[in-house]
């Protein structure tokens, strides 16, 4: 399968091995490797332009990888079509919200369950349960286009969950939320991985949220991994401090 002698892919995890994405000369992702287990919350952080969203787009099939491999539970999904990757068990939300604006909130979530093979009746039932869990069931009959901003994010999360993913990628879920909303989001998100037995990867700039939510962090800069570990460990890595705070402040 690969010419790189690599460790046996973990059969209960998302494995990313040596992922590269070059836009002509620009190395947006340059040999990124990590794995994400079920039940775990991994924070993917880094300065603007460090390749976080590119990584999500490559792994979910929106952009072709230049090289490297992605495995879901031991099955390779590298460069498969986005809908096939969704079938393989990977769901995501978008940095710029992408809802089905002419469908109701309920239908937005229902269609995700339908696309996984459920009948409309069963899909509706699953959607109702998920909207209840995420705390937006009272909005379910509204068109998505008239929803307030803070709730749009939650509908996206509910929609992703309706595919019953093994792994969930959240691209800046807290962007544009005020502190109260961010706190509510934290409550919603923190219990998901354990309850749904899924691995969650979160990209965000809200460090308060990231530090409180994540078991583990992975730090990117210019497409390269510059640090990984628990939030406490990552805070002490010189390269990370330098990337976030600059050379002099970091004292490197």
């Amino acid at each position, binding site marked *: 399968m690969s010419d790189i002698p690599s460790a046996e892919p973990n059969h209960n995890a998302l494995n990313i091995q040596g992922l590269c994405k070059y836009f002509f000369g620009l190395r947006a992702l340059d040999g990124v490797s990590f794995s994400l287990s079920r039940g775990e919350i991994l924070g993917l952080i880094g300065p603007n332009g460090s390749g976080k969203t590119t990584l999500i787009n490559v792994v*979910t*099939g*929106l952009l072709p990888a230049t090289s490297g491999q992605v495995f879901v539970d031991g099955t390779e999904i590298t460069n498969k*079509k*986005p*809908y096939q990757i*969704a*079938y393989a068990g990977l*769901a*995501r939300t*978008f940095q710029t919200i*992408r*809802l*089905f*604006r*002419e*469908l*109701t909130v309920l*239908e*937005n979530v*229902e*269609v*995700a369950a*339908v*696309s*996984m093979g459920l*009948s*409309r009746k069963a899909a509706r039932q699953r959607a109702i349960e998920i909207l209840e869990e995420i705390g937006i069931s*009272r*909005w379910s*009959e*509204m*068109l998505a286009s*008239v929803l*307030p*901003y*803070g*709730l*749009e994010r939650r509908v996206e999360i509910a*929609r*992703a969950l*309706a*595919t019953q993913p093994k792994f969930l990628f959240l691209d800046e879920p807290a962007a544009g939320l*005020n502190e109260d*909303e961010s706190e509510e989001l934290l409550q919603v998100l923190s219990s998901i991985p354990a309850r749904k037995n899924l691995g969650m990867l979160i990209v965000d700039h809200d460090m308060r949220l990231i530090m409180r939510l994540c078991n583990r962090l992975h730090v990117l800069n210019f497409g390269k991994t510059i640090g990984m570990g628990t939030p406490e460990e990552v805070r002490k890595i010189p390269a990370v401090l330098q990337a976030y705070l600059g050379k002099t402040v970091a004292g490197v």
Partner: protein
Amino acid sequence: MNLAARLKPFDTPLTLVGAVLFLALLTGLLGIPLLTRIVTVMFVSLILVLGLQLYMGNSGILSFAHIGFMGIGAYTSVLFSMTPAAKELTNSNLYPFLIPLHLPFLPSLLIAALVAAIIAAVLSYPLMRLSDAAAVITTFAVLVIIHVVLVHWDRVTNGPRTLFGVDSYTTLWTSVISCVITIFAVYLFKESRIGLRLRATRDDAYAAASIGINIVLMRWLAFIASAFVAGVGGALWAHFITSFSPYSFYLTETFVILAMLVIGGPSSVSGAVIGTLIVTAAREVLRAIENYINILQIFPGGFFGFTEVIMAIVLVVILIYRPTGIMGGRELRWPGRRRLSPPVEQEPVRNRNV
């Protein structure tokens, strides 16, 4: 009470079917030949508009090819429905193996629709991955291809010459029954698993793919179903008009059907029905005015094209002021179905200011 609750999920098609049946009954009771003719043609147009809505409304992609499949349906149906004697009389060039084919009207119509669907399936698959302008232009190319084939394949179509001698099977009642079936079929498609997923791709293709929707497949299935309905429309039309040529299935007809759908509102079945009713009524009124002006000879040398020009202006005005059509994507529903404003008990949430 119980019955009303049970029928509620079908309130939209039942309302539309009620309106169509009412019109048909009224026309039948009045028994005015000209009115019967206008209403019958309207019902056939309605089938074509509904077929176009099935693809365009749910996928969000404009298709110019629709009338081409109507033409395929028309020509295929008459190949089966005409008697061998009539075929030899009207088209001496016909392939010999086509001459003995002879079936009753209903099987001819169904075969015609199937043939249109099969040709659509083959022609359209590579086009379904295209979006926006590229998708629209390629459907236009499909219309041109079908038209050129109809014009030049004279061993099947009698070439550019008018084909005559078709039996008149389509009546007010056959057309209205077909309309009722089509309304239900198109509405059920919209609410089906395929229809729901296709509407999701219409609103956001990336998000649809991210939840596992195969966009190309959904569009393709809808395009095939849409061509099937166009084939039915073509077969009904052929057996009403009874003589036609390939030029009957080209730009003029395309424009009329598109105008009906766009004016009514392409993303709902109700829009297709209302657009067809309004445009038909408007066209007849304008045509009457045009004729009256010509009779009075207000303009020396005649007064032509008034109807078409006014219809085009109306289309432009609608597109400017109400780009989503009269219905704006809504369906006609019985009261109490859906809540469209935020629930009041919710605490105020920050609005989106971007």
